[in-house]
């Protein structure tokens, strides 16, 4: 005979349809989203890993001021590496406000994946990066103007060495809006490259390094050989080339964040189930006692009460996974495609995703419910029959002052009676608020960063020169600049701009009274360096280290920078007195030949990080905010529903006594309101700390510094969002209280 208790399950499902529907939808969307995300990221990680061989991605590259000499080329080729010319030119686009880095078609190294259309076959055609094209609304067949000549876009492509569009490895963030990569025919390339050719060489090791340590040693060897012949403009090993490595590390990071998020959600849902189950056991204590007295085994009762949560999680996991592999995978993929210029990928069956989205949540759900059921069912049959499920006989009521009005005492009793529910509410509100704050605050953090940068720029234009050259432009101030690196420690080694500033410089207001240096607040805050400390930096392409005594912090948030007196600068770097290699100016300088200009830094350059973050994260932030609100509502809905159901008999009884619906609500709903509002308000500092920790940890892996600053208005917005969402739930709960009939009290008078 089939266990007749099983017949309760569909009825339970029917009578609690709204509750289970909400849980189903929520769990399905969480599991579906996570599974889709993991399947997409897993497939992309695989595609990304395979792309190193498939597209023969370089092990590093370096740029020289001139073409590589035959001796150097031969020495490198003979010793360690295969060398490939990978020259490029950078051009402003005429009809779009952007810079394009243009290459010949690569046939041997860093090969190109065609996403749409084809590679340029004839002169006058250009293939551009797919993401840059998307961000600037350019399609195949459109025309792109470069140096007044129109090029027809023949294809949208992904460069295997520019999956993240970093124009320089020292950029905090890639810029896929105003920076793109492109390829043209060899003829067109020759025509374009009449001036300012970047003599960039890619190399691959003859013997693949075993790990990053060995790769570093091998790169040092390559750099050593180059340094013997010439000074490179840049030397970028693959492991520190964000344009190549960013995708892999970002995909991996996303996976751990998203998995953690899934487990926390499952944990909360499991607790909600555990509370529901525990409440059901209390409600059905006498029935359980009778069943046990009749000979039902503890195991049979446990299995019975475990069945429903397990069905819910299993069905959610199955449906979620199906949706993950079909719908959500594409959503996640499109999110990645909107951030990175990824090549095509094939969906691969992801065992890890199955484990994480199905097996582990099922185990979590099972364990939490099992432990609670076992603990509850440890009590004797008699206790169940007597409906006395308290563990301790001596449990006394918490004393409440009689001076407190009865309604207040009543409410406090409701809170004390439902402590586990309220603790879960507090925990759930905290988590939902972190998600919500992430959604609301991150755009503000980015905006604030952008505003700070714009309002604290040293000047409108910074020109870094290849060689000193005079200008007649008024208000142009000479300065010196070089690049050093931080010593690798907790944080990765990072490029530092070292400025030599004349004491009369009108753009940098520092009075260098001592030999010490000033550091930008970005450097101070990111690397925790304070006034009085000694800062050690090293050469970018060498081993020499420099110690600087920090005399003060200068507010310059857009760059990891060190400022020193120009005389000290020349002494430190053994340069002639009066040396300079740059201008700061509040207007554009026109009288310097472009060939002397190494870099021109403008507002656009300084704000590209924030711009890209807004582009990549915009849709995700909206999604997160919505998710935070839904999660918030779900948790409060389920738990306050339990509280009201648990007290249905008391509510009915009190109604019999003559209490109105309003008074009942003020007792049972106001208690929840108090807890919810207090949770929202009191958890703000903790939410803020968690958010700060997440942001700082997440952003510290990027070069540069993005300060964590959330304006007070964001917290107000967040709290209002929570309170309004709660208002909606409270309305439904009020209706529920109203619907409780008087005869409940009379029927169950046991």
């Amino acid at each position: 005979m089939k266990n007749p208790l099983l017949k309760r399950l569909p009825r339970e499902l029917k009578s609690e349809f709204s509750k289970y529907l909400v849980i189903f939808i929520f769990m399905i969307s969480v599991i579906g989203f996570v599974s889709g995300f993991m399947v997409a990221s897993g497939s992309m990680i695989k595609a990304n890993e395979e792309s190193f061989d498939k597209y023969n991605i370089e092990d590093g590259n370096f740029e020289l001021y001139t073409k590589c000499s035959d001796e150097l080329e031969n020495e490198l080729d003979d010793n360690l590496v295969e060398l490939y010319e990978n020259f490029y030119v950078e051009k402003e686009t005429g009809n779009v406000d952007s810079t394009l880095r243009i290459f010949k078609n690569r046939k041997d190294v860093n090969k190109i994946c065609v996403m749409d259309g084809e590679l340029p076959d004839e002169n006058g055609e250009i293939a551009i990066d797919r993401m840059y094209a998307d961000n600037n609304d350019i399609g195949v067949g459109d025309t792109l103007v470069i140096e007044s000549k129109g090029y027809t876009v023949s294809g949208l492509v992904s460069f295997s060495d520019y999956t993240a569009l970093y124009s320089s490895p020292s950029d905090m963030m890639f810029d896929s809006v105003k920076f793109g990569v492109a390829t043209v025919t060899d003829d067109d390339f020759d025509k374009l490259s009449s001036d300012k050719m970047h003599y960039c060489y890619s190399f691959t090791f003859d013997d693949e390094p075993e790990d990053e340590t060995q790769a570093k040693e091998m790169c040092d060897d390559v750099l050593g050989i180059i340094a013997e012949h010439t000074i490179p403009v840049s030397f970028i090993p693959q492991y520190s080339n964000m344009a190549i490595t960013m995708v892999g590390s970002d995909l991996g990071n996303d996976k751990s964040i998203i998995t953690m998020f899934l487990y926390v959600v499952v944990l909360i849902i499991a607790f909600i189930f555990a509370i529901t189950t525990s409440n059901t056991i209390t409600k059905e204590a006498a029935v359980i006692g009778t069943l046990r007295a009749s000979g039902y085994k503890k195991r049979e009762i446990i299995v019975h009460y475990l069945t429903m949560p397990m069905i819910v999680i299993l069905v959610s996991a199955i449906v979620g996974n199906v949706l993950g592999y079909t719908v959500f995978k594409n959503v996640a993929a499109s999110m990645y495609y909107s951030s990175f210029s990824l090549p095509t990928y094939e969906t691969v069956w992801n065992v890890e995703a199955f484990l994480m989205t199905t097996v582990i949540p099922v185990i979590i759900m099972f364990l939490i419910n099992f432990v609670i059921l076992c603990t509850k069912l440890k009590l004797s049959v008699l206790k169940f029959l007597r409906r006395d499920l308290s563990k301790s006989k001596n449990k006394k009521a918490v004393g409440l002052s009689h001076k407190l009005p009865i309604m207040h005492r009543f409410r406090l009793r409701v809170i004390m009676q439902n402590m586990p529910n309220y603790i879960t509410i507090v925990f759930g509100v905290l988590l939902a608020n972190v998600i919500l704050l992430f959604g609301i605050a991150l755009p503000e953090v980015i905006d604030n960063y952008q505003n700070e940068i714009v309002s604290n720029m040293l000047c409108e234009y910074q020109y870094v020169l290849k060689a000193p050259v005079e200008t007649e432009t008024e208000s142009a101030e000479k300065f010196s600049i070089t690049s050093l690196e931080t010593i690798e420690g907790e944080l990765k080694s990072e490029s530092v701009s070292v400025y030599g500033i004349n004491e009369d410089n009108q753009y940098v207001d520092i009075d260098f009274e001592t030999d010490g240096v000033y550091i930008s607040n970005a450097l101070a805050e990111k690397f925790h360096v304070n006034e009085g400390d000694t800062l050690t930096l090293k050469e970018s392409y060498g081993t020499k280290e420099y110690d600087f005594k920090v005399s003060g912090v200068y507010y310059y948030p857009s760059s990891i920078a060190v400022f020193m007196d120009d005389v000290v600068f020349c002494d430190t770097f053994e340069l002639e007195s009066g040396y300079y290699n740059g201008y700061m100016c509040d207007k554009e300088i026109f009288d310097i030949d472009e060939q002397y200009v190494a870099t021109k830094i403008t507002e656009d350059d300084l704000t590209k990080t924030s711009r890209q973050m807004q582009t990549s994260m915009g849709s995700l932030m909206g999604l997160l905010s919505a998710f935070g609100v839904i999660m918030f509502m779900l948790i409060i809905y389920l738990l306050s529903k339990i509280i009201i159901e648990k007290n249905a008999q008391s509510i009915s009884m009190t109604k019999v006594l003559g209490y109105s619906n309003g008074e009942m609500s003020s007792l049972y709903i106001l208690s929840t309101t108090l807890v919810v509002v207090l949770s929202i308000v009191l958890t703000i500092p903790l939410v803020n700390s968690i958010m700060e920790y997440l942001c700082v940890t997440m952003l510290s892996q990027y070069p540069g510094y993005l300060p964590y600053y959330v304006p007070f208005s964001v917290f107000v917005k967040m709290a209002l969002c929570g309170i309004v969402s709660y208002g909606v739930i409270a309305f439904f709960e009020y209706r529920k209280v109203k619907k409780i009939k008087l005869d409940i009290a009379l029927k169950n008078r046991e």
Partner: protein
Amino acid sequence: MFIEIKGIKKHFGEGESRVDVLKGIDLELNKGEFCVLLGPSGSGKSTLLNIIGGIDSADSGYIVVDDEKIEEKSEKELTIYRRKHLGYVFQMYNLIPNLTVRENIEVGAYLSDNPLDVDELLKTLGLFEHQRKLPNQLSGGQQQRTAIGRAIVKNPAILLCDEPTGALDYNTSKEILKLIEEVNRKYGNTVIMVTHNDAIKHMADRVVRLRDGVIRSNVLNDSKVSATELDW
């Protein structure tokens, strides 16, 4: 002897609040006997019933049921003992609210390898027409009949009834008592019924009176009457 109860003692609480509920109970019951345990509140009758049912334990003494000592059983064995031999009926019916009448009875049948025919039992209980109703659609008497059905469907050797009519009106109480009487006669179960209603003693084979934890009298009823003839 089917049930042998020897020297059963039981106390609750310690120190000043110690209450000796049972102070040495000796009792023997034959198979198929209808025994009524009478006594005022606090006399220990429900405690004794619970010890016989294996859901409470004695401080000392022992109970042998069909040659098996209950005290020596582990919790698991006690569950099997209840599963095989016992049917329980309580004052409050303790039905499962979202199962129908029939299903509540099937919950009992499920525990037995050789249950009674549920349809026949429903007819005997007068619940055949109500079999698809949920407990909250039934009167108190119908609910108690369902609870009795659930207890006896597995055809237990012993039917333990703890104040089965305590929550029912006069007529319904008589109906229920009649039903228990019928069950006892038809299926031959040993029935032990706890009650404080003195009138019920007339339908019993044996009447045991308890007060302050001791048996004050234990008499066989020679002039047993049908439940329908009871009056109080």
